[in-house]
């Protein structure tokens, strides 16, 4: 029997990484919010790899933290190993990555949701979204007939929609990690006129630690110095656990080749489109047949468990083949599989139906975030969830949405890519997708985005004040280095000789010396007597954060300036907004393809229009003409 179970501002459908961020953001911005999950024990679950961050993904987490999201803090509380990747390749690509204790992460996030003001949590499967005759969100309905009236809905259904698990020739309806799928919501979405796609992803097997011979593997310990994800976390000291590295070999590849005919991937059983960057092991062996081995990382799933994750061995081969294949690896000869590898197919939406705030263009108040938008990865999901949650709340409060552009954040790159270009495979963020990555560093995410988080309302006054103080100190120190000269005396040249640097004959700015690759800020202290007290010694965490910003800004000034000029060019077209009532069908001079694409995507700016595939520079010229003519008349 249908009954009205509650009145809310915002309902979040799904409590994975996108859903948790969305619900927290919405509730924190004062909206009465409810979040649904098919199983409350799966809140913030990591059904695949037990880690957070990595290249570009780590950037997303830091950006999310600067905007007031939760993933960074939760990771800092629950990680069991921390690493900085790419530390030698340049500051723009330094990336944080942490192995987390999967269960602890879940408990921590669930508890955070439970403690949150304005937020209710409910175990239920949502089967329908309800829209009124003006195509505005009116509510959601659960499988038990409970009706929740609400003004906005955020879909964060992950891989649950019509989930289908495939293990070799066995396949069945199911969600990730042995959970139930959500089989009925897809139909409701279709009835609302939403275009669905079918994607595929997969996960490797889990092995009991006690069945592994680590003496045949290479140990991969964490870093000695731990850099937290959250700008709020302060110093973290904790014991870390190791990961392990082993390799596939010719025997592994033989087992795979001999059984390819039983692979659903090659047998045509899988119709969903899988990601290129996350190929199954059978895919790798076939596509890169010249390679004699592939890496496999063995990663702990947590502290209170013996389950180990086999990164690099994602597969949808039959169970018996999986066992045979895994046991060919050094150290895994007597491996005991606890959970089999599987592929999962699921429904997702074509993200080109969304605007840059992640709201559906054709249904007022309906937002979506995460894997349902065709992305992949916990961090990509969380970032979208946060933005969708903020924008649902801002919309209900009658405020302008928070939209980050490609020059402001990886989050902007991620959303713009999805919404403007669409995707034909699960989308993963990469540093190579960002045009201005020298500006979008993980170290300056707070400088870039804390003001935006403060404006949106998720960054509280005290944190904002600390931020302003840090920023002022950074700027003051850069200014001091740029205006302080040292004399070419014996002391200075002795220091330079010691540092392997060319001596000076005339007075030189400290900044000039710091620009020399061989001279670090710390080393410079020897001839820099007037440093402010708080920068004299490594006294606090803020000390490291400040000198990092100062060093990068001074050392790479030329490149940073050049990239800022490029951003200025880029912004010109981004600032040219296109009125949403524009009728592309009546615009004289647009080519047919451009007319259709523009009409479908309805870009918000000329810049966005120029990134749509099938829209030519000539079309953009025409569009500019029309816009100027309109604005001239008004």
């Amino acid at each position, binding site marked *: 029997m249908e009954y009205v179970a509650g009145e809310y501002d915002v309902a979040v459908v799904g409590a994975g990484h996108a859903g948790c961020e969305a619900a927290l953001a919405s509730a924190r911005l004062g909206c009465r919010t409810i979040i649904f999950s098919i199983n409350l024990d799966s809140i913030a679950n990591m059904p695949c790899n037990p880690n957070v961050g990595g*290249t570009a993904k780590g950037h997303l987490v830091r950006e999310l933290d600067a905007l007031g999201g939760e993933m960074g803090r939760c990771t800092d509380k629950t990680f069991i190993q921390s690493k900085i990747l790419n530390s030698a390749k340049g500051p723009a690509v330094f990336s944080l990555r942490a192995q987390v204790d999967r269960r602890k992460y879940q408990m921590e996030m669930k508890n955070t949701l439970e403690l949150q003001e304005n937020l209710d949590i409910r175990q239920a499967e949502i089967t329908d979204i309800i829209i009124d005759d003006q195509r505005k969100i009116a509510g959601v309905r659960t499988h038990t007939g409970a009706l929740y009236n609400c003004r906005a809905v955020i879909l964060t259904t992950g891989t649950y929609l019509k989930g289908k698990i495939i293990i070799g020739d066995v396949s069945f309806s199911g969600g990730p990690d042995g959970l139930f799928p959500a089989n009925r919501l897809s139909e409701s979405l279709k009835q609302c006129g939403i275009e669905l796609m079918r994607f595929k992803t997969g996960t490797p097997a889990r092995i009991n630690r006690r069945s592994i011979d680590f003496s045949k593997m290479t140990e991969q310990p964490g870093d000695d110095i731990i850099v937290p994800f959250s700008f709020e976390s302060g110093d973290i000291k904790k014991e870390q656990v190791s990961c392990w590295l082993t390799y596939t070999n010719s025997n592994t590849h033989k087992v795979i080749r001999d059984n390819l005919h039983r692979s659903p991937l090659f047998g045509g059983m899988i119709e969903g489109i899988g990601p290129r960057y996350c190929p199954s092991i059978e895919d790798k062996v076939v596509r890169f047949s010249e390679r004699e081995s592939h890496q496999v990382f063995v990663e702990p799933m947590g502290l209170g468990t013996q389950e180990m994750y086999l990164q690099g061995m994602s597969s949808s081969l039959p169970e018996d083949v999986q066992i045979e294949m895994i046991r060919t690896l050094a150290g895994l000869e007597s491996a005991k599989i606890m959970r089999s590898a599987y592929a999962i197919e699921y429904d997702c939406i074509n993200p080109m139906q969304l605007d840059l705030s992640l709201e559906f263009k054709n249904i007022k108040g309906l937002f979506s975030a995460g894997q349902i938008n065709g992305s992949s990865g916990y961090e990509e999901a969380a970032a979208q969830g946060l933005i969708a949650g903020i924008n649902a709340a801002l919309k209900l409060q009658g405020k302008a949405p928070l939209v980050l552009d490609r020059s402001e954040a990886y989050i902007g790159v991620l959303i713009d890519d999805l919404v403007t270009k669409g995707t034909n495979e699960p989308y993963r963020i990469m540093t*190579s997708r960002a045009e201005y990555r020298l500006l979008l560093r993980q170290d300056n995410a707070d400088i870039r985005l804390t003001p935006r988080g403060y404006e949106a309302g998720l960054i509280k006054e005290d944190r904002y004040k600390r931020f302003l103080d840090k920023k002022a100190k950074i700027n003051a120190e850069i200014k001091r280095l740029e205006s302080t000269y040292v004399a070419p005396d014996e002391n200075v040249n002795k220091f330079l000789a010691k540092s392997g640097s060319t001596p000076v004959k005339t007075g030189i700015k400290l900044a000039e010396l710091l620009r020399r690759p061989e001279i670090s800020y710390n080393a410079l202290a020897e001839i820099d007597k007037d440093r402010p007290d708080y920068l004299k010694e490594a006294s606090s965490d803020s000390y490291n954060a400040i000198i990092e910003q100062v060093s990068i800004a001074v050392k790479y000034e030329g490149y940073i300036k050049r990239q800022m000029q490029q951003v200025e060019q880029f912004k010109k077209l981004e600032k040219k907004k296109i009125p949403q009532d524009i009728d592309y069908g009546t615009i004289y001079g647009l080519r047919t393809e451009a007319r259709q694409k523009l009409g479908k995507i309805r870009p918000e700016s000329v810049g966005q229009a120029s990134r749509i595939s099938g829209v030519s520079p000539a079309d953009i010229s025409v569009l500019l*003409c029309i816009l100027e003519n309109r604005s001239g008349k008004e």
Partner: protein
Amino acid sequence: MYETIAAISTPFGKGGIGIIRLSGDEAFEIADRIFKGKKTVKQMKSHTVNYGKIEDPETSEILDEVLLTVMKAPNTFTRENVAEINCHGGTVVLLKIMDLLLREGARPAQPGEFTRRAFINGRLDLSQAEAVIDIINAKTSESSRAAVGQLEGNLSKRIKEARSKLVELIAHIEVTVDYPEHDIEDITGRQVHASGEAVREQLESILSGFERGRIIREGINIVIAGKPNVGKSSLLNELSGKNRAIVTDIPGTTRDIIEEFIDVRGIPVRIIDTAGIRETDDPVEVIGVKRAEKEIENADLIIVMLDASTDMDGEDKRIIEKVRDRKLIFVINKIDEARQDRTEILEKRISEIYGEEPAYTEKSSGNGIKIIKASVKNRFGIGEIEDTIYGMFLKGGIEGNSEVLITNIRHKDLIVSAVKSLKDAASAYEGGLPLDFITIDIRNAAGYLGQITGESVSEDVVQEIFSKFCVGK
């Protein structure tokens, strides 16, 4: 808020004068940097015509005497600041001034861009708007056709090759950045440096070997050589169609170098009449002879004139000796004043000197010896001379319209930018900067080349990563 654009606004290759138009926020500043007159551009009143010279600020070389028209926004065609340079040099000078403007910060106008700006800035009403849009569409396809035309063949292939090498290089760097833990061999700064430099060398050779483009842009240098009074000045006059060089019967009238810019079948040609290369004690003439020798060295083509009415003498032989192994046309002049057998004797002497050298024909792709019998005075043989010049340099013919030319400058511009980016990459490496910074420059270089070939870097790199490297969980 708009970049300053520049274009040659008069038809290419025709007419004795030409106009270059500049429009945009910095039109006056840019004009001011190359214009030397009584007033600075700032001091000039709007809508006035001002006399002065165009001077290359780097070399102080005077390029031309010009009239500069200054028109202040908003009462101009584009409603922006507009400067028009009225030059009286021919195509070559126009192109040189254009190059100078680009160097000083203008960029080449796209087809229809002046009109488009006029429209955008509200100069045109709506009924004109649709016409503008038609122009944009038509011009864009026209210029892209021109671009495609130019890009067919060798140049396109080489640019694509260079670009794909850069994309490959970027992908290799990016994959190690995006997948740091995979056992992909890390690319070192040294390798990146070496590959980047190799591509830079390729691009530089494209730039220097871009002969056809250079001829279209800069014209051909032709020197007319021959002993005094053989008819060099008359030939120059005939070719230029004007009576510029002083023509007399007294040997040595042309004491210094006379140069003329002419248009031969659409090719800009700088043609130089020399003072002859005879042994002389006259100090003035010595200077002339020296200059003539220098011009011969720099010439793309030398027209050697012989007098049919006299036998080949020591001076003729000296000239022929000097121009050996160069691209040559022999013109045997004054055939109307000589018996036919004299002409044949001269032809025989030429072939004696050149031995087995085959004769130039239309099929011999620009090489070989060409002998033309002429009577310049009676305008006989002039057409054959023109045909030969054209055939020797541009066998396939050229598109003599400005669209091709603009596209050309744009391509050169982009290749030059790519080369500069690669130089930046090299100095970033030498300066000890991390790999990521070097990548930025290499990306820029690939981006510039992509603007020629119409490909975008970002998507290509991602494609390349997944097709070449085995990554993933």
